[in-house]
């Protein structure tokens, strides 16, 4: 296999190699945390500068933050509904912002310039651990949202409208996090791979449109993840009559 030429780019990409950090007897992927801390730091810096001196007539960064806030509120309100969207807006918004800065940070920052002993820096969302963690948080939240809003009546949802739906609804509880995590992971990883392969094969011009496409996909994926999370929560708190 090593003699085949197309193996080379993949070998160069170091797919699936990680920088391991040992904490006690736990092993974590260091590169994921390094990039996520940098990106979260940038996000928090933006938020802090924008909210430092807020006025009724918004100026500068406050405009951007208010636009984001409005966007997230509309997303949460349309998916979750007028009644409880306020409780879930921070969670949906954090998912959106975190995934968005992760995706765009992974695509825009030239991480490759920083050499690591093993693995390479990239979008935190290109690591399956991150996306599964996010997806499981969504699962937990919609269960919590349903149970806290409707108590045990939440489980009526499983036999709604007919008990025939029960197995499908149960399967859905597993497919929801699975599809959420793999959709995000696959899209971001595939984008990074395509760009890397193209850069390896044709270093000039050709990767640029693909990079723009990658930015577009990244934004769309963040929106899809947040919208679906909000939709699942909305589905769980919805009252059937």
């Amino acid at each position, binding site marked *: 296999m090593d003699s085949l030429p197309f193996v080379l780019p993949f070998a160069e990409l170091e797919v699936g190699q*990680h920088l391991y950090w040992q904490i006690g007897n736990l092993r974590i*992927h260091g590169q994921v*945390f390094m990039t996520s801390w940098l990106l979260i730091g940038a996000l928090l810096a933006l938020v802090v500068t924008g909210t430092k001196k807020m*006025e009724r007539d918004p100026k500068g960064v406050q405009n951007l933050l208010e636009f984001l806030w409005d966007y997230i509120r509309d997303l949460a309100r349309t998916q979750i509904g007028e009644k409880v969207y306020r409780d879930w807006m921070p969670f949906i918004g*954090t*998912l959106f912002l975190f995934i968005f800065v992760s995706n765009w940070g992974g695509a825009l920052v030239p991480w490759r310039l920083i050499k690591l002993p093993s693995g390479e820096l990239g979008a935190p969302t290109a690591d399956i*651990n991150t996306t599964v*963690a996010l997806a499981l948080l969504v699962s937990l939240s919609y269960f919590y949202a349903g149970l806290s809003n409707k108590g045990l009546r939440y489980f009526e949802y499983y036999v709604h409208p007919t008990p025939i739906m029960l197995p499908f609804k149960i399967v859905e509880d597993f497919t929801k996090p699975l599809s959420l995590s793999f959709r995000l992971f696959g899209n971001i990883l595939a984008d990074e791979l395509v760009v890397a392969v193209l850069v390896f094969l044709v270093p000039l011009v050709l990767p640029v449109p693909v990079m723009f496409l990658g930015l577009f996909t990244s934004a769309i994926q963040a929106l899809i993840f947040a919208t679906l999370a909000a939709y699942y929560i909305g589905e769980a708190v919805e009252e059937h009559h």
Partner: protein
Amino acid sequence: MTSLLLFGASEGGLFDFDATLPLMAIQVVVLTFILNALFFKPVGRVVEEREDYVSTSRAEAKKKLAEVEKLELDLRNQLKAARLDAQKVINEAEQDSEKLYKEALSLATSEANASREEARREIDSQRENALNQLKKEADNLGDLIIERLLAAK
């Protein structure tokens, strides 16, 4: 080699689950609380305050507009009433002046008639006098002529 890396053997791989997963979940939950405190609450407060401000200003403006419209209507009604009053005064004055004119006209006409009548009567009486006098003189002359004729005979 590639497939080994992709499908995660003992070390590494794309689907290499470890403590990154729970730690990332905790990190995102913590980030949710931080962003809630730093971003969602303060920005939401500012936006909602502005929305309140805008809606109250709108309501106030609407109230003021209604007031203005009421005042305008009032004013218009007053104007209409004033115009009607003025019309009435003008009409009255016109009628008065016409009455006065008619009275003066009738008075003048009757006076003129009376003086004409008097003049005619005077003329008539004078004519009668003159006729009587003429008749008397003619009688006298006749008598005189008769006397002279008789005397000459």
